[in-house]
């Protein structure tokens, strides 16, 4: 793996920034170099939120995403904003709720938000479900490292719920996404 750029884009409150941070920490635990950057608006809730993770086997020069390899979108606003920026080689994963009817044939869609709601009763673990999907699809970090990073990053009382969310994300792919 030379350089892998992953963007998780969604809405404030979906845990997008935490998910990106977990992924970068898992990459470091897996023996790679990683960076994490975030873009957010001045408001504390709602609005667009985005997390970029760069993972490389060697030292990372430019720490920001410059040419996204994989884009995961978790809200309609994020889809309209970031899908057009994806290059033709970039891979796309979309939450089923915000997938348009004319979704690109190579894109994959999964019920990420609905799965998160079923587990937590809110959207809070959406980002972690997305990490499960990502892991099952791309195997970018070691699965054990990802579990370890989730456990270390989330509050203790929500640990089990987040590990469940991660597992559910992996199983969404196992069940064969639409």
């Amino acid at each position, binding site marked *: 793996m030379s350089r892998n750029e992953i963007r998780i884009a969604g809405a404030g409150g979906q845990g997008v920034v935490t998910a990106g*941070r977990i992924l*970068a*920490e898992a990459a*470091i635990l897996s023996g790679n*170099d*990683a*960076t*994490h*950057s*975030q*873009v*957010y*608006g*001045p408001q504390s809730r709602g609005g667009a939120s985005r997390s970029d993770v760069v993972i490389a086997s060697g030292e*990372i*020069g*430019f*720490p*920001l995403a*410059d*040419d996204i390899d994989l884009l995961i979108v978790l809200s309609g606003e994020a889809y309209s904003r970031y899908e057009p920026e994806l290059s033709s080689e970039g891979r796309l994963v979309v939450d089923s709720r915000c997938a348009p009817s004319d979704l690109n044939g190579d894109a994959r869609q999964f019920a990420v938000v609905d799965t998160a709601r079923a587990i937590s009763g809110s959207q809070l673990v959406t980002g972690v479900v997305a990490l499960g999907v990502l892991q099952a699809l791309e195997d970018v970090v070691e699965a054990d490292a990802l579990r370890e990073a989730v456990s270390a990053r989330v509050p203790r009382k929500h640990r089990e719920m987040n590990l469940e969310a991660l597992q559910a994300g992996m199983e969404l792919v196992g069940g064969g996404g639409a």
Partner: protein
Amino acid sequence: MSQAQLIQGNEACVKGALAAGCRFYGGYPITPSSEIAEQMVRLLPDLGGVFIQMEDEIASLASVIGASLAGSKAMTATSGPGFSLMQEHIGYAAMTEVPCVVVNVMRGGPSTGLPTSPSQGDVMQARWGTHGDHPAIVLAPSSVAEVFDVTVKAFNLAERFRTPVIILYDEIIGHTRESVVLPDSIEVVDRVQPTDAPADFWPMIAPDDGVPPLPAFGDGYRFHVTGLAHDERGFPTNDAQVAEALVARLHNKIDAHLDEVIEVDTYMVDDAEIAVFAYGIVGRSAREAVMRARDNGIKAGLIRPVTLWPFPYEQVAEVAAQVDTILVAEMNLGQIIGEVERAAAGKAEIKGYLRADGEPITPTALLEAITPDKEGQR
């Protein structure tokens, strides 16, 4: 060596400050610098330090100056709007020779501008924002690891030269998390203490290197601090010769030791036809662009000043004599480019890649700018 950890630039700043001996933080939180205050309030009390949230940024730097005079290593952190308010006391600290560190995590301006977006719009303000002929040391790290190193260096230079030191980085460096292995030990410099008995001591008598010793207020030494021009006893004066000698000394104590202050990173400039001049996060884009250009057979290089002020005129002049073109890339409408032109003095063509919309300058964009078109033009 310690373990690799994923930390933000703002966290690295706190770790560097504490390692360098900072034990006082007075500030007023503002995006994108707030994580510095947030970490300081958590960590300082256990180290026997003090954190105060002041009523505004004017008072913040005032509290830092007071703490420093009482013998503590002290800092504050802010962003553009707060940095504007701090200008008065930056000048006061320069004139009264109080060691302190001011961090400005730059965001889009003018005014409250773009609170969560990066910029490099405060480069000239960091040099000339406060009035009068004052010296300025301004450092601009370009990675999370370098934020740690530069923060340590800022405290050491502040103590060494009894002067305010400004650390300038942008929102991207402040908020990006990178994998960092922190050093196990660092060099720490402390302000020079008087060797005279208290009865023989006058506060502003400087030895040959131009830096007077600074006892802590309450140590029993004579103490007089004023922003007015003052004599060697520290008392105000209107004497032209005394005033001139003071202002000259304030500059000379730093100018005579530029080798301790100026740090410039160069990369592949030896045979370069075009050099990119970039600092902060743009230095990272530029390095990547230079590497890609070399892969394409273009002789490109990089000059990346870590020290923005005093400006590295000599180092830039050397590169200008070697290359045809220097491309200055900065996230503003053209600030440091004027200094590059002064340094190059016509020896190289100076071009700008300037952007002030709150978006970063990417390696792809810079690669395009340094790649000649079919006619060989850039």
